[in-house]
């Protein structure tokens, strides 16, 4: 086919004309985009101004700051917090406020173990949004070991399988890390309804074997605590079964990672009689005189065994019976 120059030019003109029109339309749209960009630019310049101001302040304060008492620690031991959790109305609220506390603690790794046959999206989403370093596990409790509706909370031990699963994961994960037994870390069992002050995490960070401290609002008393004399724990001040080997609450002790790894068989015994859960774990790890007392020789309460009321759902249940219950898509 022979291409005449004239046809080429005509073709070119048509195509360029169409292209020009199209580009002009696109150009019009682009104008809108730049209008939206202006406020973004303004925000950026404002933020930049704030940033420079804050940096100036940091530089100013550091010039006048007192010399530090402690030398800089190259890296802090990580606190591994194992939290068993289970689905109920207040679960999201409990985990939310727990994550808000943990977010203040540096070098903390949250191991959440759900009592469920699979990971639930509620917990998954919460963990992702929390901003924490976490591990999400799940381990269902066997039916006969589970508390039924209406059972008092002390009837069966709770969280046993979940804590053991947390320990198992930790051991497996740490074995794969370089450094093996010389790894520094602390393991703490934190239930999702307790209240933790930020100081308790700093107290437990330098645990060599097992450290202990008082726990508030537990054992039917204002607080339970180890009694310390000469820097050693000689007995436990508790109103309920003080003859247990370790009459403490789960929130009252932390174990060093080294000890957990060195004793791969030690875990919580679900068959232990009521109140002996902690002892079943600690017995194989440490003796009473090896315990390290924290919190000012166990004289300050830095963690409280709070419990959250079950919300009253009378009206909700009545509505659901009529088929008018609240939208289940709205996550509570």
């Amino acid at each position, binding site marked *: *086919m*022979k*291409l005449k*120059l004239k046809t080429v030019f005509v*073709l*070119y003109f048509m195509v*360029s004309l169409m*292209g020009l029109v199209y*580009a002009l339309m*696109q150009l019009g749209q682009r104008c809108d985009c730049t209008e939206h*960009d202006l406020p973004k630019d303004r*925000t950026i310049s404002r*933020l930049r101004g*704030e*940033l420079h101001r*804050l940096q100036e*302040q940091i530089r100013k*304060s*550091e010039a006048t700051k007192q010399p*530090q008492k402690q*030398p*800089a*620690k190259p890296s802090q031991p990580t606190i591994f917090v194992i939290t068993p959790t289970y689905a109920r109305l*207040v679960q*999201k*609220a409990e985990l939310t*406020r727990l994550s*808000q*506390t943990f*977010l*203040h603690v*540096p070098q903390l790794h949250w191991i959440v173990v759900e009592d469920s046959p699979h990971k639930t999206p509620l917990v998954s989403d919460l963990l992702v949004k929390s*901003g924490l*370093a976490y591990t999400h596990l799940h381990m269902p409790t066997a039916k006969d070991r589970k508390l039924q509706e209406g059972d008092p909370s002390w009837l069966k031990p709770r969280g046993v399988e979940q804590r053991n699963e947390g320990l198992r994961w930790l051991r497996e994960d740490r074995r794969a890390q370089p450094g093996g037994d010389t790894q520094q870390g602390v393991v703490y069992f934190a239930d999702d309804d307790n*209240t933790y*002050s930020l100081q308790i995490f700093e107290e437990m960070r330098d645990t060599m074997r097992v450290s202990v401290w008082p726990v*508030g*609002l537990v054992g*039917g*008393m*204002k*607080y339970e605590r180890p009694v310390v004399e000469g820097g050693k724990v000689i007995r436990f*001040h508790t*109103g*309920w079964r003080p003859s247990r080997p370790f009459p403490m609450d789960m929130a009252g002790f932390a174990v060093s990672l080294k000890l957990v790894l060195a004793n791969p068989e030690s875990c919580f015994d679900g068959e232990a009689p009521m109140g002996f859960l902690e002892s079943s774990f600690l017995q194989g790890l440490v003796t009473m005189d090896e315990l390290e007392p924290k919190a000012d020789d166990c004289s*300050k*309460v830095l963690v*409280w065994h*709070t*419990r*959250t*009321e079950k*919300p009253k*759902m009378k*009206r909700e249940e009545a*509505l659901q019976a009529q088929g008018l*219950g*609240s939208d289940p898509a*709205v996550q*509570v």
Partner: protein
Amino acid sequence: MPKRRDILAIVLIVLPWTLLITVWHQSAIAPLLAIRKACHHLVKEIFIIPERLAVRHHRLSDDGVEGKRESGGPAQDSKEYCASDKDIVEVVRTEYVYTRPPPWSDVLPTIHIITPTYSRPVQKAELTRLANTFLHVPNLHWILVEDSQRRTPLVTRLLRETGLNYTHLNVETPRNYKLRGDTRDPRIPRGTMQRNLALRWLRETFNANSSQAGIVYFADDDNTYSLELFEEMRTTRKVSVWPVAFVGGLRYESPKVNAAGKVYGWKTVFDPHRPFAIDMAGFAINLRLILFKPQAYFKLRGVKGGYQESSLLRELVTLNDLEPKAANCTKILVWHTRTEKPVLVNEGKKGFTDPNVEI
């Protein structure tokens, strides 16, 4: 067989267009990308947590001072940075990581949180975890009002140690208004006098003409608040509302929002015909509105159960003025949790534990 001249012609046609298209695409996308990257970078730089860096609002001339008011420049000068080393550790998986509490910003409206509290065994625990939540919120001013004759050392010490920007007040509810023991008598609303005192303090401290932007929120000490809630309420112009979980015997109570984004009713079972069928934790008020209507307080006497919130709100806004938040009132950002009363049977009559140890 295409002649060389034809090929040249075709190339001459196609080449400028390909050039134009590629250049045009680049220039359209590049500014947007640059802006996004700059934003991310700035956000990361502003909110990074150095190791051991703690920002504390220290009042240099401390003891006995009632509290600290926020005021841009001087407040920041009194901050003390206790950094032991310059290592900056960026927490993994986070875009926003806070120093404790976050640095004061000149652009964000202040959130004034009014919390009434009273002495009981779980008080310190409740205030501790509440403080842990508040330490994440920038430009927060906590007004804690005790139901007591004098400001207790427990609360004084706790407030000081948190490092938050706070004001510590107290007023004792007279005996005939107080709840007796455990009986939940809905005719006597708890915390009313304390909240009113806080409102009065706000009116005495801020004058209506000042440009200080502020939001007032009533936060009880046993509820649970997500951090998102505080950012939602920051844009309140008059009164904003949102759903609250675990109130009214339901999974949640929420305002009814129509397609135009206006509140037209209340999705509750308990007396949905109240003027404002909402829980104390379900609304926030712009400070300007509080200052413009200095007569608006919570009604103390003769208030039916569940009408306390209405007694204040009806003097401030109409239903039409309410601003629905939390995705048009479809997300739960606050839970009306209640803490069990701890069983203290083993204390016995004389008390088993050392009363000097504070719990």
